[in-house]
C-alpha cells in the first residue's frame, strides 16, 4: 500500500486544502486588532489552525512508518530546515523590500509555523520516493477503501436533476427523475418495483407536502 494513500495522510491534506481555501478567499477581509477585531480576524486564525492541524495529521502517520535509514537521511534534515526556517524568515524578510503579503506572513508566528509545516510536507513528498519506496509495511496504516463510484454519482446526479427540474417542470417529473436515477445507484434494479415506488412516493409527497403542509409547489408545472 502506498503510504500517501492512508486515511490519515489524505484527511490531513483535506484539512490543509480547506485552510488554504479559507486563507485565499478571506484575504480581502480586514484583520483588525485583538481589541477591535475586523471581519477577517477569526477566519484568519481558524484557517491557520486548520493548516497546522492538517499538517500534523498528515505528518504523524508518515513519521510512524518511517524506517531508521529514512529518519536519518530525510526526516532529520527536513525537520532541522523547518525549525530554522521560522526564525530565519521572521528576521530576514523585513530587511528587504518584500511585497506586503510576504511581510505579513513573516510577521506572524502562527503563519510561519503553518508555512514551515507545509514546506516540510512538500519536501518529504519529494524526497521520500527518492530515498526509499513510498510503500508502507502491510497493516501499519489504514488504507482508504477504493470508493465505489456508482452510488455516490447516481445519488448526486439524482438530487441535482431534482433541483434543476423542480421549478421548471413541477414536482412530479423531478420526483420521477430522482427516484429513477437513485434506484440505478443500487445493486438491484427492477422496473416494476421502481414504478411502484414512484407511485407511492408521488401520492405520499402530494399528501404530506402539498396538502398537509400547504407548500406552494406545482405537481406538474402549468397544470396542477
Amino acid at each position, binding site marked *: 500500500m502506498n503510504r500517501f494513500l492512508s*486515511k*490519515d495522510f*489524505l*484527511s490531513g491534506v*483535506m*484539512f490543509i486544502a*480547506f485552510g488554504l481555501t*479559507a486563507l485565499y*478567499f*478571506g484575504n480581502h*477581509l*480586514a484583520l483588525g*486588532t*485583538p*481589541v*477591535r*477585531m*475586523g*471581519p*477577517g*480576524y*477569526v*477566519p484568519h486564525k*481558524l*484557517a491557520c*489552525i*486548520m493548516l497546522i*492541524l*492538517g499538517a*500534523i495529521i498528515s505528518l*504523524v502517520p508518515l513519521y510512524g512508518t518511517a524506517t531508521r535509514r529514512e529518519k536519518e537521511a530525510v526526516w532529520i534534515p527536513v525537520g532541522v530546515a523547518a525549525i530554522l526556517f521560522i526564525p530565519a524568515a521572521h528576521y530576514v524578510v523585513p530587511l528587504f523590500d518584500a511585497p506586503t503579503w510576504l511581510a505579513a506572513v513573516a510577521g506572524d508566528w502562527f503563519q510561519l509555523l503553518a508555512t514551515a509545516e507545509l514546506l516540510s510536507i512538500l519536501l518529504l513528498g519529494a524526497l521520500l520516493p527518492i530515498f526509499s519506496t513510498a510503500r508502507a509495511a502491510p497493516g501499519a496504516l*489504514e488504507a482508504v*477503501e477504493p*470508493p*465505489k463510484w456508482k*452510488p*455516490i454519482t447516481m*445519488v*448526486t446526479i439524482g*438530487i441535482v436533476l*431534482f*433541483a434543476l427540474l*423542480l*421549478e421548471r417542470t413541477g414536482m412530479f417529473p423531478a420526483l420521477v427523475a*430522482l*427516484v429513477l436515477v*437513485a*434506484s440505478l*445507484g*443500487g*445493486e438491484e434494479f427492477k422496473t416494476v*418495483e421502481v414504478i411502484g*415506488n414512484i407511485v407511492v*412516493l408521488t401520492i*405520499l*409527497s402530494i399528501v404530506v*407536502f402539498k396538502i398537509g*403542509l*400547504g407548500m406552494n*409547489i406545482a405537481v406538474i408545472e402549468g397544470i396542477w
Partner: protein
Amino acid sequence: MDLLNNLFLGLTVAVSLQNLLYAFIGCMVGTLIGVLPGIGPVATIAMLLPITFHLPPTASLIMLAGIYYGAQYGGSTTSILVNLPGEASSVVTCIDGYQMARKGRAGAALSISALGSFFAGTVGTLIIVLFAEPLTRMAQKFGPADYCSLMALGLVAAVVLANGSVAKAIAMVFLGLLFGLVGTDVNTGAQRFTFDIPELSDGIDFAPIAMGLFGIAEIVVNLERRMERTGAIKVGSLWPTREEIRRSIPAVIRGTALGAVLGVLPGGGPTLGAFSAYTLEKKVSKHPEEFGKGAVEGVAAPESANNAAAQTSFIPMLTLGIPSNAVMALMVGAMIIQGIQPGPEVMTKKPDLFWGMIVSMWVGNLMLVIINLPMIGMWVKLLTLPYRFLAPAILLFCAIGAYSLQNSTFHVLQVAMFGVLGYIFVRLGCEGAPFLLGLVLGPQMEEYFRRAMLLSRGDPMVFLQRPISLGLLITTALLLILMALPSIKKAREEAFQEEES
C-alpha cells in the same frame, strides 16, 4: 411550589390536542427508524428539520424529541428479534437480547426492555425538572469569556466521543467553526465567504448541511454494502417470569442511574450509557458466566441506560444552549430555525415551550410503551422492507424538505454538495458529529470571543482571570491530557472497536 406550578404549566401545554398529536407522530417515526436499520435519528431529524419550519415551535421540538427517544425503543426491538441493532445505542442489547429470543423468551425481553426504558425515561424527565432551574440560574451569571470557555469545553468533550483519531476530530471541530463563519459579519456587515451568492449572506443554512452530511452520505454508504436481512423470530408471550422480574429490577435501577449521569456529561449520550451499563452489570453480577448466553440483566440495564441518557442529554442543551451530541446539535438548529436562541433565556422567556417539552417527554415515553408492546408484530413485518425502497424515499424527503426551507433550489444543490463532502468524510474516517457541533456553536462562539476581547481591551488573559472561565478551561485541558494518556487511549480504542464489530 414554583416547581409544581411549572410542571402544571408544562402539563397543560403537553396534553393539548395538537402537541399530543405531534408527540405521537414523533414517537411513531422514531420507533419506525429505530426498527429500520440503515437510518438513524440523526439522519431523520436532519431530514425533518425543514418540515418543522412549518410547525409551531413547541410542537416541532416535541416531535423531534419524540423521534430521538422513540428510536431508542425501536432500536432494541430489532436487536432482540433479529440480532440487528437498529441504533448504535442498542448494539449491546443484541448480545443477550438475541440469545433470550433464541431461547423463546423474546416477548419477555421486549417487555423488560420497554418497561425498563419507561422507568428510565420517567427518572430522566424528573432529573431534567430538578436540575433545569439551578443550572439555568447559574448560567445567567456567565459573562462572554465564561461562555466562550464553556463552548470550548463542550467541543472538546464531543471529541472524546468521536471514534478514531482525536487529532482528526479536533480538526473537524475547527472545520465546522470555519463553515459557521460563512455569511454577513454581525459587527461590520462585511460579506465573508459568500462568493456573491445572495442565499449565503444570511449564513450557511444548517438543515441542508445536516441532511447532506448525515442523510445522503449514510444512504450512499448503505447502498455500497449489501444490507443483509435475517428472518424474524416468533415473539412468544410478552409476560416475563417472576424470576426474570426479580433479576431485572436492580439492573434497571443501576442502568438508569449510570445512564442519567453519563447523559448529562458533554459529549455523552445513549451509546456510551448502554455500553457502560452492560459492563457494570457483568462486573456486579453473581453469575457473570451467563452474560452472552441470554442473561436478562444484559437486556434490562443497557436498555434503561440508553433511555435515561437520551433524556438527560437534553439538560445541557436546554439550560446552557450547549449541545452534547449530534442530535442535540440538530435540536439547537431546530430552535434557531424557529427564531429561538437556545440558552438560559429559553426557560424565563418561553416557559410554556420549556416545561411543555419536558412534560411531553414523559407523555411520549408512556406512548412508546403502548406503541411498542401490543403493536410489535407490525414493526417486525416492517423489517422485511428492502433498502432499495427506502433509499429513494429518504432522498426525496431530503430534496423536497431542503427546497421548502426558503423555496429555493439552491438549498437542494447544497444538499447534494454536502452529500459529496459527507461521503469524503466517511471514506477518510472523519466523524461528522464534531463538525456539526462546531458549525452550530461557531457563530455564537466568535461573538462571545470578540465581546470578551473587547471588554478586556484585547487581553486574552481575561479567559484565565475569571474564575468560572478558568475552571472550565482547566477541565478542558484535563480532558485533552487524559485522552493523550496511553492507558486511556487504549481503553478508548477498545471501546470503539467493540462498537464497530
